[in-house]
């Protein structure tokens, strides 16, 4: 079967972001960008399914600026067969991305779409569910285990209080949780090979999708700072402070 894996270029998870002084957003000029960690897990899962013989082709997709090509090259170095960039400088919100992906799903006809459960920049956790809704596919969100079973996939999901398993008919949408797998490191020979793989570029207009944002960001501010705490020398002092000063025990 064919798998579509959407990947997002985000500020690297190790970067401590700074809010711009004018409150218009977060300063991402000159900071390190990487593939969203949940998306790496999605690519890795697709590659593992291919290694098991379940999957025949992996198509990586990214929506955004020209530099997203680097993210797609990374996906191909992990093992994706080819890539599509939906190129635009516009601000893309999850609903718009879901509509772009829907158009690509109609064109490519994958049996599975594997996404990360959320992007670590906007922390939305929406795109996979929205894509499933728009395409009428079932969804297996927050997956910690994916198994091909007779005529579908069994997805074990991380839910509050434990795990639950659902069986989905194909085609289906899956979103990855952290414990699904450990993504492999890309090797230099694979990075070189990835440069030769096909990367197609399309525009949102080619797909007939209006990407106008529906949510306006009015301002972005620093979170309230916690007032500076103190260090206590020993356990007795700590207990005393908690009882008499903070009154929480």
């Amino acid at each position, binding site marked *: 079967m064919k798998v579509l894996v959407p990947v997002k270029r985000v500020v690297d998870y190790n970067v401590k972001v700074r809010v711009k002084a004018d409150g218009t957003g977060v300063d991402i000029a000159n900071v390190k960008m990487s593939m969203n960690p949940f998306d790496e897990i999605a690519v890795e899962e697709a590659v593992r399914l291919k290694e098991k013989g379940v999957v025949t082709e992996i198509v990586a997709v990214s929506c955004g600026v020209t530099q997203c090509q680097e993210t797609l090259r990374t996906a191909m170095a992990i093992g994706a067969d080819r890539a599509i960039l939906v190129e635009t400088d516009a601000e893309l919100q999850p609903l718009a991305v879901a509509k772009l992906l829907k158009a690509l799903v109609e064109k490519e006809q994958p049996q599975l779409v594997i996404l990360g459960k959320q992007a670590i920049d906007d922390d939305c956790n929406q795109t996979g569910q929205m894509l499933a809704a728009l395409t009428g596919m079932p969804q297996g969100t927050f997956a910690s285990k994916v198994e091909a079973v007779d005529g579908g996939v069994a997805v074990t999901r991380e839910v509050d*209080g434990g795990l639950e398993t*659902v069986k989905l008919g194909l085609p289906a949408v899956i979103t990855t949780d952290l414990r699904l797998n450990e993504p492999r490191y890309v090797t230099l020979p694979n990075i070189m090979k990835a440069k030769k793989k096909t990367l197609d570029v399309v525009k949102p207009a080619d797909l007939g999708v209006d990407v106008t944002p529906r949510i306006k960001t009015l301002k972005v501010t620093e979170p309230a700072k916690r007032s500076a705490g103190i260090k206590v020398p020993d356990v007795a002092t*700590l207990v005393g402070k908690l009882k008499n000063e903070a009154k929480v025990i």
Partner: protein
Amino acid sequence: MAVLVIAEHDHGSLKGATLNTITAGLACGGDVHVLVAGHNAGAAASAASQVAGVAKVLHADGASLAEGLAENVAAQVLAIASGYSHILFPATAGGKNVAPRVAALLDVAQVTDITKVLSPDTFERPIYAGNAIATVQATDAVKVITVRTTGFDAAAQGGSAPVEAVSAVADSGKSSFVGRETTKSDRPELTAAKIIVSGGRALGSSDKFNEVLTPLADKLGAALGASRAAVDAGYAPNDWQVGQTGKIVAPQLYIAAGISGAIQHLAGMKDSKVIVAINKDPEAPIFSVADYGLEADLFAAVPELVSSL
């Protein structure tokens, strides 16, 4: 204008997260209606009718809703969605699973994890793992929202809303429930606990984790939490994980033992009222958010703490 809150429940009772979501719903203005979708969930529906501020409870009872499958629950919400200006879900695993599906089917954007309602269309929500707070305005006619439960107080008891039955949707046939593995715990629920004792990689093993932290949690009547490192190493079950990708908590007292304090962990607990850090590394970032820091070996300090309580 009316607000629809989708209840999270276990059929017999309402989950605490529903009460916080009702408070957020009241802040949006208008009548608050609560949808209880499930199978034989009459007890949960009557519990919802007793929450102060609720104007009406809609109870959909059908086998298709027994296991909360996203496809069926979303269809159920859609079936009754007309006439509501706001549709609110708690930002739990269940709410996050269904809300975007409803939003996309209504062709509206969804707002995730709101922590404050500024006006009926303007909300605050954290982004970048809580390192920035965005004020956003939803321009769509219907606002589909998930509510960060720690951002709102729980609604009080004392209501007497009528319960109205609505017909349940048919099964989508696209997905089916296979099974569930629930982590057994007789401790308070992590997201609702007043005190949380949380452990990190420094505990070293699952046995040590339990041996050192359980007595302290018992003594304080606290829930146990863990950092991602501790969960990944198998010291604690994964639904104990506190952080950006785990549970978001805001207890009265959060005790972090052997947790360095990576930004992803801080995103999950920095709204706690009082934070205590026990760590032998004086440079650990957890000390920058801790109200009380104890620079000590947790294997000595935690037992000492237990005996002095």
